[in-house]
């Protein structure tokens, strides 16, 4: 028998049920009305875990521990009180109403438009004034054509970030910082030592927040290998890749 300050009923819950409030409200709705987001199990999140409309049981997350191995999360729950003002008994959703308890949140009919961050990798060359100039090419060209690198050459790559709404206009975001990674793509049939050796021979230097140079060293074993250049926004919001091939 579970006893607490809140309830004295038998608590025989065998499985949990968490309504998807994000689906109902979208990002903007959750932010606007200060509602819980059931997609992310975070601290102080309240939700109904029973399907009992007469006596719904509310729980609140007090502790989230990521365990090893990956994929196992240990949540600590505390039983919470049913809030007549904010919770919806019909739908069994906590924090359904706003603080006044009167205004029901109207679900907007229009799909919420998320702001998105898109990143692109461009190649760049040094022009006659010794300035770095970005080669703007279409996405299709970048996707279909490998970037061909010669050993003992120096190649420049620039990441640019664009923010905007889905399907809407995108504007350049100059304040983003990048994390770059270059790794061998065609690893099949190669030992770890060989992969490590090939990775070491591709020297990557950071020039600026969003600019790097790649310098394939003068080694014939590099020729014919394809590397994947990945750029990630430092906040982890956007990721973009490009394949580069050493051809000679």
């Amino acid at each position: 028998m579970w006893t607490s300050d809140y309830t004295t009923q038998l608590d025989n819950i065998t499985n949990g049920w968490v309504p998807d409030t994000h689906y109902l409200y979208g990002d903007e709705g959750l932010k606007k009305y200060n509602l819980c987001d059931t997609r992310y199990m975070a601290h102080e999140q309240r939700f109904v875990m029973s399907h009992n409309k007469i006596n719904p049981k509310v729980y609140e997350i007090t502790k989230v521990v990521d365990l090893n191995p990956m994929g196992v999360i240990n949540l600590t729950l505390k039983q919470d009180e049913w809030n007549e003002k904010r919770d919806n008994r019909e739908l069994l959703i906590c924090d359904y109403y706003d603080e006044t308890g009167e205004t029901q949140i109207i679900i907007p009919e229009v799909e919420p438009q998320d702001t998105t961050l898109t990143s692109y990798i461009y190649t760049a060359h040094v022009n006659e004034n010794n300035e770095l100039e970005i080669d703007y090419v279409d996405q299709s060209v970048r996707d279909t054509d490998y970037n061909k690198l010669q050993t003992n050459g120096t190649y420049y790559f620039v990441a640019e970030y664009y923010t905007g709404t889905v399907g809407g206009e995108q504007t350049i975001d100059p304040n983003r910082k990048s994390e770059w990674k270059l790794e061998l793509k065609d690893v099949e049939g190669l030992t770890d030592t060989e992969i490590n050796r090939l990775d070491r021979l591709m020297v990557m230097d950071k020039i600026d927040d969003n600019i790097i140079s790649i310098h394939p060293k003068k080694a014939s074993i590099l020729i014919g290998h394809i590397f994947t250049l990945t750029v990630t926004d430092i906040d982890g919001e956007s990721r973009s890749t490009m394949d580069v091939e050493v051809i000679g």
Partner: protein
Amino acid sequence: MKRDIANIKRDLDNRHNNDIIYKKDQLMKIFQEDPDLKEVLGAKQPKPLNKYRDANNPTEEELKKRQEILDYNRAIQHEQIVPWIKLNGVQKEVLNFIMFDIWDQTDRYDRGGKAVKNELIEVYCVVHEDDMDTEYGIARTDLLSYIVRDLLCWTNALGRQLRCYEDKPMIIDAQYYIRRMRFFMKAPNVVNGHMGTNNIYDNFSQF
């Protein structure tokens, strides 16, 4: 014999006047023109300049960034191939050097040392202890000495055939590893020269 000091004419710019100056100049060219040597010396590459969005009206931020790049490019420009054997202070930006010098000696079997001399060329591959490792998995000193030997040993780069007779690992200055290579060749004697002079007319070497 009186010296006519007023009429001594030395063209100081003419490198053919002196054997050692001329050969050092040749060695400098050989080393500087080799791209692999430059690569293994680990010179940092100068950064390309940032491009102004509006070429005529750069913003303050752009100008500041441009200045930073220029400062960096200036800082990394140290000569790495030097025609003397001396570490000119510990550098922060440039760690590795090729140093060389020429040592002339009279040949003991040439009576009086009038016609032939022994010419020893010393090349030092100087590598800072922090930069010994290369991407090729070979120690930087070994790679440098391999390239230098490839450029000089058994070649006629300086006229007569050069022969490497020593390639010795050493430690100097507590922080630098070096390989000292010594090349040997016989050369026409201009150490003493004829009649104690050393001018263009005495230099009868092959070049």
